């Protein structure tokens, strides 16, 4: 997947000379997860800017650059570091188009590795989707496959709105054959992973793989789950989700976000509001525990949703077969 991201970013940088990358170790080092490897030699150090460690200020600098004609892609070495840039992301990124009465656009893409990894410790294992989701004016997407990673990267760069692209630390080595021809993915659309009839399972990022793994067990036990990778964390694709709910009448959300104020919490209420009459039962939601990610292996495993929990949840919602 890191090569897909690199391809997407590289193609956009070739296509539009205003696209540039700003972040720590993006140039000479090639990016902490090698997404920008080779870019410095190819595009030069002004287009792949190695910054000092000053997230709030260089994010603000990217915003000023975007207001004056460039299209920066800001890399958070780990997405958690972007918490230091929260001032600029919330106040300036999200707000300036509005407070300027539409005079300035902020076409920045903010991206980086996030999520719970393998014993990286609490601060490097953060799930930031919930923190940024309320900021008005931002779009958020989460990639989960090499195909959608490249497509979403390209679409995010071309979008006139500020977009946060969530990548996951454990998915960078995923392999997949992707088309040679140029393509982008729609930022606002969800992705059908597995059509089904019994229950709609909504998920994103790494949890997609826990869901598909659980699905194998579920299918063996006679269930037919429909799996949708929502991809667009903000705004939600209420059409794809709605059509599915109308078909299956049962919903389970599986996310890596914390339970409190997470994507699942928002999604649950959005579905309930729009599709109440279609539901045969309460919307289930499996989220990470509201704990700082522990270092120790067994505890870390307990923090995120595991496939067996997904199987149990589906059995509870659908009834035993």
């Amino acid at each position, binding site marked *: 997947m890191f090569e897909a991201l690199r391809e997407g970013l590289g193609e956009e940088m070739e296509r539009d*000379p*205003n696209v*540039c990358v700003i972040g720590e170790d993006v140039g000479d080092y090639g990016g902490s997860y090698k997404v920008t490897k080779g870019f410095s030699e190819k595009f*030069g150090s*002004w*287009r792949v800017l190695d*910054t*000092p460690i*000053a997230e*709030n*200020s*260089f*994010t*603000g*600098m*990217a*915003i*000023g*650059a*975007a*207001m*004056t*004609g*460039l299209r920066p892609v800001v890399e958070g070495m780990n997405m958690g570091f972007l918490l230091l840039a929260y*001032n*600029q992301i919330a*106040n*300036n990124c999200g707000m*300036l*188009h*509005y*407070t*300027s*009465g*539409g*005079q*300035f656009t*902020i*076409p920045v893409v903010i991206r980086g590795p996030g999520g719970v990894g393998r014993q990286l410790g609490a601060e490097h294992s953060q799930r930031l989707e919930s923190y940024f989701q309320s900021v*008005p*004016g931002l*779009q958020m997407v989460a990639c989960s496959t090499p195909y959608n990673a490249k497509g979403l990267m390209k679409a995010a760069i071309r*979008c*006139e*709105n500020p977009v946060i692209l969530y990548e996951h630390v454990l998915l960078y080595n995923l392999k997949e054959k992707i088309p040679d021809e140029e393509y982008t993915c729609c*930022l*606002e*659309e969800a992705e059908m992973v597995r059509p089904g009839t019994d229950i709609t399972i909504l998920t994103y990022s790494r949890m997609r793989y826990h869901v598909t793994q659980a699905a194998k067990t579920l299918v063996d036990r006679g269930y037919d789950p429909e799996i949708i990778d929502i991809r*667009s964390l*903000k*705004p*939600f*694709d*209420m*059409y*794809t989700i*709605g059509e599915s709910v109308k078909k299956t009448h049962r919903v389970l959300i599986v996310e890596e976000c914390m339970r409190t104020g997470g994507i699942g919490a928002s999604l649950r209420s*959005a579905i309930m509001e*729009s*599709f109440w009459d279609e539901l045969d039962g309460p919307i289930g939601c499996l989220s990470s525990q509201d704990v700082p990610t522990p270092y120790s292996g067994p505890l870390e495993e307990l923090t995120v949703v595991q496939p067996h929990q997904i199987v149990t949840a589906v059995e509870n919602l659908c009834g035993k077969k």
Partner: protein
Amino acid sequence: MVLGRSFEDMCAQMYYRGKMFGFVHLYNGQEAVSTGFIKLLKQTDFVTSTYRDHVHALSKGVPARQVMAELFGKSTGCCRGQGGSMHMFSAEHGLLGGFAFIGEGIPVAVGAAFTSKYKREVLKEEGDMPVSIAFFGDGTANNGQFFECLNMAQLWKLPVIFVVENNLWAIGMSHYRSTSDPEIWKKGPAFGMASAHVDGMDVLKVREVAKEAVERARRGDGPTLIECETYRFRGHSLADPDELRAPAEKAHYAARDPIVALKKYLLDNEIATEAELKSIEKKIDEVVEDAVEFADASPLPGRSQLLENVFADPKGFGIGPDGRYRCEDPGFTAGTAQV
């Protein structure tokens, strides 16, 4: 300077008459800094300011009508009434904002300078390099963003000028109580940056220092940090009772009123006559009166304006249950902001 002073005085009147609301921060006393720097700039140069931005906007060329209408919250304001006193923006005049949180605008100015440099280095554009000026106060000079930006601007030799309007007070916090080394201009050399200190009550002195800084930036030799000793004649905002500042201090600076000083200079050196200066003041009064009339007569924003500028691309509101983008519904902007 006179426009700035008359405008701000009118703002105070209008505020107490209930025509504008919220936090309004007036610039009285500091006019020499705004005029001294901004009048050297071109329309293609950039300025960022703080919440005390009305006069920076006027100096940069934003019409008084648009600023006053913005303050009244009308849709004819420079930001359609959506920004208000602390968020003045003008794409036409290179005003990149008005920011309420201190320090927030400094990286934005550095970003605009980065664009200038990028356009030279990468896009090979020619002609004069646009420069940016970031205006901020003494309180901001203790903030992380200030130091981070000094480093980056000097590191990459960006065409930005950091102007500290040191009026000695951050609301009720005296500069000397909050700053270990109060000489702000001395912090530039720690980053290898050219720095200067200037009497911010004297517009001609400010202009001299500003000229050097602008020239340095334009020829690609990088940023300058300039500390201007100045003073605000009014409280921090119209809500500030201004009880902490000593009367002696206020009197000292009132005697150094930049407008009075320039007037004296013009008359003493026979550059202008009393009559000419009076006619300028009269013209300015008319401009300010006209601005108020325009703002008064302008309409308030309608319901449909609420959602229009949340996203540059309104597809960001997403796809609704009916399969269409919510923004495709003609009644959309009069509805609710659901995503």
